[in-house]
């Protein structure tokens, strides 16, 4: 089809139309104009009501959707257009050039000599699976050629009326065989056997002899194993120009139907498969799956009265002309680097089926200016070979890499598919000038042309963060949860560990990573866990919390445990400042060695401090905080600026808050982005107490 630059009010089919919502519903209105290089012979919209508008000449036609049809306003199905034109069976191509050479994408749609446009339309309008196997009137049984193999189930379950039905089902097709064809009959159960070593000609004597043998069949072959006989049939060399058709008659199920279906699918270029399910007990999945994978058709019979008609229906479908035995011929094979797929690996082409080849040429091809490609194939409807030739003009080409990408992707897919699926016969699948190391070559092509295959992957370094930023990661975890209202959880004591995971109910559970969406639960659960852990010795506690993502928060440093302990103590004694002071003193004495050392500026200490800030911005004075700051309560209260002592508010809270704010600035300046808001809250708390933080900082140098 000729592609022209669209005018302002037109869009090419290769771009997606944008449908805008209008007044609560989608208005689906379209006008489709088809322009061709040859006269259009048929144009119809199959999915929507549409009016056909003749163009100025036969090369142009337009379809206008009927706006009066209210159902068309619902954008719920594809727009499906059927059209044909005079030269539809002439191969078409697109050609692109890069530094590496040329890539041509060639479409072939074989023509059947006796096929009329009406036949093609009938076939195209068929539904899904059966479309390709529909039976237009042009089927000529007398001239049709083929190899027909019947595979009949003789397992124990077939005994009685079912086998009678199956035997009857075989008589009709045997008698209906085209005279210039071959046939054979396989029986299967737990084992299988073939009536003839190789398929024999279908002349009358042979057919009658086979019918007599079939009459002797009994259901004596045990279970149902379909895979081995099908594998055997597909492994046999095909008879040239006699497309092979397999008829499967079964009533049972197999243990692994997928394996059978996969075998048929991966070999559907060697045989089409038609299947007949007998009785109620047969596996519908197996019967229809085999037919679909084998590009055939399936039917089910439940009553012996149905059987003859249904089997003949299958036979007629099997006689549909096909194209087979493909070969590509080139005007100069020396310049061909690769083509995919290899025509020898193609499945049968049925009516209206198009096949596409990607052909890669090296730069030497451009010397002659043009290049001819011929597809040669056997046409069963005429019993002879046909050819289609396309001449590539190597002086007119696209410059983008799109075609190269599509072609390389196709070749890579074919190779990958071959590895995944069991193929019974060696196929070349794609042809490449250098057969060795083709996998590596495809990787090279994928990388050079930047198209993804299963052997390659995208890699994208979004940002060079460096280790400095990684060092702040733990602190990042704390930022989000600490903005929650702490008061909400009073009087619980929390140990907030980032925005990570926790278990909801069990303090000692291993399920800390289970629920990360509910931060509230996280707090509660951590609290429970910590509370239970409190009476335990530190060593045991580490075991409980020492796995998973939280390892680094529960290393064997004592500070974390101490602060939890002292917070509890502090809360229980808050009625009396004096008592609290005493308690603090006691606890402070319990803190090992911190009293004599400088302040603790570890990340863990920073985490603990941030966590223990109250919602109103202040901190409670307790032993844990004093330990982190590396100062005793008495010393702190002694050195605190006099403005603090005179200010309205809780002296201890104001004192420790001021000290912590200074401590943050002094030791964690590099993490300012994390604690800015926390710090600000503290400053505002002091301001509410009548204190100006900037004025006090210089007097806090002892921190």
């Amino acid at each position, binding site marked *: 089809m000729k592609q022209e630059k669209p005018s302002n009010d037109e869009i090419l*089919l*290769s*771009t*997606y139309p944008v449908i805008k919502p209008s007044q609560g519903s989608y208005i689906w209105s379209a006008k489709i104009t088809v322009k061709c290089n040859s006269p259009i012979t048929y144009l119809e919209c199959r999915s929507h009501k549409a009016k056909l508008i003749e163009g100025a000449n036969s090369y142009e036609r337009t379809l206008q959707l009927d706006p009066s049809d209210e159902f068309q306003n619902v954008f719920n199905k594809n727009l499906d257009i059927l059209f044909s034109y005079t030269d539809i069976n002439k191969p078409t191509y697109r050609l692109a050039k890069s530094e590496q050479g040329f890539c041509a*994408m060639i479409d072939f749609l074989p023509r059947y000599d006796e096929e009329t446009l009406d036949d093609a339309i009938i076939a195209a309008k068929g539904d899904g699976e059966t479309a390709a196997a529909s039976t237009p009137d042009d089927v000529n049984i007398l001239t049709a050629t083929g190899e027909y193999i019947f595979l009949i189930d003789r397992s124990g379950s077939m005994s009685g009326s079912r086998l009678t039905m199956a035997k009857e089902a075989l008589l009709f097709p045997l008698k209906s065989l085209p005279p210039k064809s071959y046939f054979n009959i396989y029986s299967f159960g737990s084992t299988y056997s073939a009536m003839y070593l190789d398929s024999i000609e279908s002349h009358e004597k042979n057919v009658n002899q086979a019918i007599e043998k079939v009459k002797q069949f009994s259901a004596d072959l045990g279970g149902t194993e379909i895979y081995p006989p099908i594998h055997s049939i597909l492994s046999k060399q095909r008879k040239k120009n006699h497309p092979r058709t397999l008829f499967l008659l079964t009533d049972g199920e197999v243990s692994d139907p997928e394996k059978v279906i996969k075998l048929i699918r991966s070999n559907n270029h060697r045989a089409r498969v038609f299947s007949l399910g007998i009785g109620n007990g047969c596996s519908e999945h197996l019967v229809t799956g085999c037919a679909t994978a084998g590009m055939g058709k399936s039917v089910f019979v439940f009553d012996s009265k149905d059987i003859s008609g249904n089997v003949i229906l299958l036979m007629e479908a099997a006689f549909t002309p096909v194209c087979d035995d493909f070969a590509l011929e080139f005007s100069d094979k020396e310049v061909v680097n690769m083509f995919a797929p290899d025509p020898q690996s193609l499945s049968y082409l049925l009516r209206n089926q198009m096949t*596409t080849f990607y052909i890669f040429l090296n730069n030497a091809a451009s010397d002659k200016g043009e290049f001819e490609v011929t597809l040669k194939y056997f046409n069963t409807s005429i019993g002879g070979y046909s050819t289609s030739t396309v001449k590539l003009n190597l002086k007119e080409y696209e410059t983008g*890499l*799109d075609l190269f*990408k*599509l072609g*390389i*992707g*196709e070749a890579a*897919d074919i190779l*990958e598919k071959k590895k995944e699926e069991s193929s019974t016969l060696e196929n070349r699948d794609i042809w490449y000038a250098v057969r060795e190391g083709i996998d590596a070559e495809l*990787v090279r092509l*994928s*990388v050079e042309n*930047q*198209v*993804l*295959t*299963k*052997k*390659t*992957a*995208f*890699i*994208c*370094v*979004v*940002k*060079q*963060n*460096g*280790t400095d*930023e*990684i060092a*702040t*990661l*733990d602190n*990042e*975890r704390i930022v*989000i949860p600490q903005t929650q209202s702490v008061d909400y959880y009073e009087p619980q004591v929390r140990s907030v560990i*980032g*925005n*990570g*995971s926790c278990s909801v109910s069990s303090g000692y559970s291993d399920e800390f*990573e289970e629920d*990360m969406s509910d931060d509230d639960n996280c707090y509660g659960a951590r609290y429970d866990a910590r509370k239970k852990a409190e009476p335990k010795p530190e060593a045991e506690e580490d075991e409980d919390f020492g796995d998973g*993502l939280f*390892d*680094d928060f529960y290393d064997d440093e004592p500070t974390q445990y101490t602060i939890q302990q002292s917070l509890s103590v502090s809360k229980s004694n808050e009625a009396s400042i004096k008592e609290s002071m005493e308690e603090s003193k006691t606890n402070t004495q319990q803190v090992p060695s911190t009293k004599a050392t400088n302040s603790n500026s570890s990340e863990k200490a920073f985490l603990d401090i941030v966590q223990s800030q109250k919602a109103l911005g202040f901190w409670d004075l307790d032993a844990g905080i004093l330990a982190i700051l590396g100062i005793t309560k008495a010393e702190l209260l002694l050195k605190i600026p006099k403005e603090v002592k005179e200010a309205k508010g809780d002296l201890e809270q104001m004192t420790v808050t001021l000290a912590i704010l200074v401590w943050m600035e002094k030791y964690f300046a590099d993490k300012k*982005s994390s604690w800015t808001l926390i710090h600000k809250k503290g400053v505002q708390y002091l301001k509410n107490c009548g204190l100006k933080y900037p004025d006090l900082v210089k007097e806090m140098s002892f921190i």
Partner: protein
Amino acid sequence: MPIDARFDSFQAKYENIVVEGVIKEKRTAEEEYKKNLEKGNTVAYAEVLKSNSDVMKVLIGNQAIHSNFCDIFLHSKTRSCSKSLLSFRVLRNSWSQIQLAERHETRKAIE
């Protein structure tokens, strides 16, 4: 995805900067991903699953620390459509479990 879709572009948008991904041999890309992960770099990786061509696996390691999201764009080509676009936004919070796991690994590696 259409059966003949071929991915040819992968982009990550972070803080209004669009970074283009590169196609490399799978093992090379995997190694590069791991190395960047260990270095602490924000890095993205994408591959089509071998078992199912309809599924693409995308890994994002060390998602940008000071950014709440990262946009990923995937472009593909088919013979009937020159370019189609898939995009998704990786939110930091919704990925926090994965992030934590990967960050944890990173941190361990550094230590």
